[in-house]
């Protein structure tokens, strides 16, 4: 029996907080109160075994994914493996890149199987799995960094939108990034897919060999990091407008590529107060900047959008 896990309602009395080791989940659900209670109960019972399941295969999950990788046994581990396999040819990636999204998805699935909910979410440190039933939606706000919580973008996820996962990655987060994005937010069909794509896009927001960026081999900070000796970002100095835009464009280019393959729905990248949006090609979903963009970035966004519209 797992005696480490903490299960509490947050002080608002509505959201559920689940913690076990490095996993912290905030869970919310709307529906009839008995249904919500049943969903929370199911979430809690599923939750308490997750960390042990994952740790059983931890060394496999921390190993670079390739065509020769053995398939993991656990269900969540399998979803992680699936999510990263699309990327394993193009870059170094381990299943851990999708762990947060896969855990969120698994807990959410347990809840929706156990109860009839109008809508529900499981937020695993910024990697969010969503459930919306017909007629309901979630309004999602994006912030640059937690200590500066002003919205730089917001969008609605409705039942008809093919998005059930939202993930954010950046160098300031709990896990390491190879890039310099303060935040790269990705909307995708599932939480594990969003999680790994956010990692890839955040890694791509970059200025290779820039002197203002401090990088350290991952294992120098965290001896058992799955990133081995890849250089992870530890500090980013002030950058000029052109540099910021160059880095954001590199990230947006990769995001467009993933979008063209159908792996993600939309994305936003953010660096030192500037934002670049990668709207979905056909039905803009109201991914709006909140008007803090400087003219140069805003113009580029418009250009990118009109080019895409032209292509379409």
């Amino acid at each position: 029996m797992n005696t480490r896990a903490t299960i509490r309602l947050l002080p608002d009395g509505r959201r559920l907080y689940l913690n076990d080791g490095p996993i912290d989940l905030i869970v919310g659900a709307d529906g009839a109160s008995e249904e919500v209670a049943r969903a929370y109960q199911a979430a809690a019972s599923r939750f308490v075994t997750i960390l042990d399941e994952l740790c059983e295969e931890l060394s496999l999950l921390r190993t670079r994914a390739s065509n020769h990788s053995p398939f993991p046994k656990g269900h969540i581990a399998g979803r992680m493996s699936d999510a990263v396999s699309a990327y394993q040819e193009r870059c170094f990636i381990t299943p851990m890149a999708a762990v947060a999204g896969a855990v969120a998805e698994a807990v959410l699935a347990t809840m929706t199987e156990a109860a009839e909910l109008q809508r529900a979410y499981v937020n695993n440190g910024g990697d969010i799995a969503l459930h919306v039933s017909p007629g309901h939606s979630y309004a999602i706000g994006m912030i640059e960094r937690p200590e500066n919580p002003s919205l730089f973008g917001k969008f609605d996820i409705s039942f008809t939108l093919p998005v059930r996962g939202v993930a954010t990655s950046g160098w300031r987060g709990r896990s390491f990034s190879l890039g310099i994005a303060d935040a790269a937010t990705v909307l995708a069909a599932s939480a594990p897919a969003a999680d790994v794509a956010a990692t890839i896009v955040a890694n791509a927001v970059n200025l290779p060999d820039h002197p203002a960026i401090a990088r350290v081999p991952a294992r120098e900070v965290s001896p058992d990091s799955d990133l081995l000796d890849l250089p992870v970002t530890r500090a980013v100095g002030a950058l000029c407008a052109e540099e910021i835009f160059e880095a954001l464009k590199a990230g947006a280019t990769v995001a467009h590529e993933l979008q063209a393959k159908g792996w993600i729905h939309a994305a936003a990248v953010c660096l030192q107060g500037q934002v670049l949006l990668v709207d979905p090609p056909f039905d803009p979903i109201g991914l709006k900047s909140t008007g803090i963009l400087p003219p140069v970035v805003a113009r580029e966004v418009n250009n990118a959008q009109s080019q895409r519209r032209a292509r379409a």
Partner: protein
Amino acid sequence: MPEVFPKDTIRCDACPVLCYIKLGQTGACDRYGNIAGQLVRLDPHIVLDRAKSQGTPLVPFLERAGEWDGALMKSKEMFVTAIGAGTTYPDYKPAPFIVSSEVDGVDMVTVVTEGIFSYCGVKLKIDTDRHLGPERNLVRCKREPVGHVTTAEYGSQMLSLGGVHHLTGGTKSEGRVTCETLLDLCNGKEVALTIDEGASISVAAGKPPIVNGQQEERMRVGCGSATIGMFAKQWFGKVDEVVVVDDHITGVLSEHQAGKMLGVRETGISIQGRRSTPGRYFQVAQPGTGWGGTNISDPLAILKPFKAKIAWPHLRLLMVSTTGEHFAYYELDESLRPIEKDLPEPLRGSVERIRENCEPALATVLFMAGAGGSLRAGATENPVKLTDSVKRSLTRVTAGGAPTYVWPGGGITFMVDVSRMPENAFGYVPTPALVAPIEFTLKKSDYAALGGHMEFVRTLDEVTREKQRQRQLASLPENPWPLKPGPKSEGEQ
């Protein structure tokens, strides 16, 4: 292949990830860190602040930490609670925080840990005279048995909920619902309970109980007989007869010992019900929500005709309930029938006095638990010495900074009023068991003597410096300051 890690790297064993953590870094959870080669828990964690509760301006913490000159002022004002501290279970390892501070020149140590209590429960006192259910009958939540009815106490009904047999001895569902019930009650939430062959109630700590849909407002001042005793003198001379209507004992002034002593004249009154001793009547009506907890709405229903030989026209009669909520004033007509009249001014005061002496009816929750072996081992290498030290009042036990009562006898079984603890101080683990904060405070020299984990003692300053992981709360003014309890000392109100 054994990997070689730099010196000062430690391996965290708090969860199965088993992170290697370098000096000055945290593990994957950001909760445990390597500080000077020691594994340290860095969680959000509640620190009580004395200055806040006393309303004196508070210096923002960081500013002060930066310029602090090493004086002792700060340690006097802060108390590290166990809420959010983490636990030692199931391993025998030192408590998450062992904090030293200085109080009036004496070095004190507070051992801070969250305990996982499967041996725990709640004593629920419900201020009501209504019959909630027969003694020993089961109390249920969501149809699962979670406790039982114990004795009726003065003006209150006692329920005992939880305990290890409901938590772990019954079905899975019984344990789960019991744990949920205890958690909600301890965290101040409202809980709906039913009693076999009894009432449905809804209770929350510190709030008026709701019995069968009806909110209790006030406790009665006493039974009808006691009320006569308390107010006889105030009525004497202003009225000829008083009947205090009560479900338990209805009192009659002229027959009651108190009336006799004052020389109140016989009135020829005649009461329904079973006479116990003079002026005291049982079962004047059925229990209910009417006058004095009976089912009557017209008080004359409990009177039989006055005895014609004794009673007289214009006899003045006051009828009042034991809560003062109901009252009526009558005078007898020529044929000795009571006719209702306005309450004369001189009697109004006595009715108001009854009401004033009825205290607000509340449901109150005491959490009760026994501190087990591993918890005590987190404080000292020789757990029995901690017990001994508590019994000898050398070690003080608080829960989230709130005072506790430690039950005499073996072990450290304590009770705490949950409404004196910070909000949401309780959690649970799926065992099922409750997680509750507990702090042991004692002199540093005593701590060393009982085999304390001296090598893990950290100064209050070190602990409170990790500011972003802490929540500072004002300590409740009604609680004694945990580091210096007992009668409020000089300089305090």
